[in-house]
């Protein structure tokens, strides 16, 4: 695992240097878009309709659409002066019960690893949190963005979950509700409760897999096995000397295939030989 961030947990007067690692990874498959004709990956061009030309990165600036009056341009220098109070630190503000936080607030989890020499204060905070059963609320800055976070114990490590600010959680007032509570009868409720009871099990995350991804991977592998792999033509021409090397490699690959074929053939001959032998004995 590669650490994303090195900073410190600040807790009262104590500073605990830690390294942060992403706790989860997204495993969904991503695809490239290819040109159907030649299977070359499509390249996106940043095009300016006014100048009718391609805009190179150095000519691109950040603009914030300000009502319908146009854009406010923000340069890199404008942003550096903004306050970023928790610079590479997790600043603990309050301790609360985990159950008080609705999961809707959670964004992403990270593991925290003690930096060399920080073992003792790290362990102290971890054990104190274990004993109290509380989790810490605080602020963390990741990639120049400050966010609310919850620091908690995960196994024998500290972990931190970034959280949405309350004004980022959308209001539910406009959604429709069921008005008439008499629509559910006590008998129906009892039955539903019974069903829940029957289906109740301990949480075993290993039971659940992403079946769509598995099926998709299988499809890809079977297409690959059927030699339906499409090579984009290489864009750079090879130098003379490199062509020699390629030829040597290709010749060697060819040899390997020949040897494999020969071995397969030999196996076949052996099998045939044995079959005839058996027949002869029968005769």
């Amino acid at each position, binding site marked *: 695992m590669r650490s994303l961030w090195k900073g410190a947990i600040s807790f009262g007067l104590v500073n605990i240097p830690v390294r942060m690692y992403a706790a989860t990874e997204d*495993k969904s*498959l*991503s695809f490239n878009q290819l040109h159907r004709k030649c299977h070359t990956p499509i390249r996106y061009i940043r095009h300016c309709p006014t100048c009718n030309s391609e805009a190179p990165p150095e000519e691109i600036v950040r603009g914030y659409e300000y009502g319908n009056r146009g854009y406010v341009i923000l340069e890199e220098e404008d942003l550096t002066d903004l306050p970023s109070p928790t610079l590479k630190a997790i600043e603990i503000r309050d301790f609360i019960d985990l159950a008080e936080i609705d999961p809707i607030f959670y964004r992403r989890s990270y593991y925290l*690893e003690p930096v*060399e020499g920080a073992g003792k204060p790290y362990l102290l905070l971890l054990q104190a949190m274990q004993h109290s059963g509380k989790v810490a609320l605080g602020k963390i800055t990741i990639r120049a963005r400050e966010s609310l976070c919850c620091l908690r114990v995960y196994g*024998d*490590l500290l972990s931190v979950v970034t959280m949405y600010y309350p004004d980022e959680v959308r209001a539910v007032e406009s959604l429709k509700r069921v008005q008439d509570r008499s629509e559910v009868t006590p008998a129906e409720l009892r039955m539903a409760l019974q069903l829940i009871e029957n289906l109740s099990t301990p949480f075993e995350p290993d039971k659940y897999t992403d079946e769509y991804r598995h099926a998709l*991977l299988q499809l*890809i*592998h079977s297409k*690959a096995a059927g030699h339906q*792999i499409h*090579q984009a033509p*290489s864009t*750079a021409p*090879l*130098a003379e*000397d*490199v062509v*020699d*090397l*390629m030829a*040597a*490699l*290709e010749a*060697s*690959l060819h040899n*390997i295939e020949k040897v494999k074929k020969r071995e397969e053939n030999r196996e076949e001959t052996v099998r045939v030989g044995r079959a005839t032998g058996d027949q002869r004995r029968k005769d």
Partner: protein
Amino acid sequence: MNELLVRIDERQLKLTNIDKVLWPDEGLTKGDLIRYYTAVADRLLPHLKGRPLTLTRYPNGITGTMFYQKNLPAHAPDWLPTYTIGDPPVRFLLAEEPATLVWLANLATIEIHPWMSTVDHPNNPDYAVIDLDPAEGTTWDDVVQIAELVRVLLRELGLEGFPKLSGASGIHIFVPLAAQYTFAQTSAFVGFLGQLLARAYPEKATTERSVNKRYGKVYIDHLQNLPGKTIVAPYVPRPIPGAPVSVPVAWDELKEVSPRQFRLDQPQMMLQRPREFDTMYNLRQSLDAVLPLIDDN
């Protein structure tokens, strides 16, 4: 008492907690690790000589939290040679004698990663590593086949390479060099080999950085040659179940061995490994003929 005073050459060392289990599935302890490092010291030390070391320590065994150690702790005995470099300065350990290995093993150091350069020329590696890292969906035969192709390429370029099992699932091929190239050059050299392989055999070889695009292929990692990157030394055990060891193999043996065949509990097997790998540093090969090809590509 779980404490033991030992004498190695003229050094006196206190071993602590030697019953601490490091590989729980095999029940292999810190005592086994110390025994192993003592047994292979003569084989291992030539690969560490004069090279600053990065250590991976597993105080609670391979399933517990680990940490990398570059900076030698203040409590380290003063007979240990060190090399200080960088800003902020980092005091690296140098291993010159068996007692150092015992001291390291006693700290639950499982892996030892030496620099690819020595303190005489810290910015000029004296070998390049071609790291073959099989992704999911590949077989050992695939890795061996790519290694064979590397051998062909090296031969075409007039270079000799020396393979070792990574101990996990791959193969590391060391190419000893005269210490006159930069890390950027050795890395570009291996990158170039990787590109050729991926071009010649796109079904099985890849230089793709993103892990999920490597399925079914062997990744040729040239970035291992960048400064500060290190690769596990030969004869060093790996912190994975089975306690496999990274060992030198002869080219012709590759097909017959299995990737985790050599284990910590058989140090005598290490002593019977072919010698070529251990003396390869004498071969100070030149990249002068290869480097001009790379820019053209």
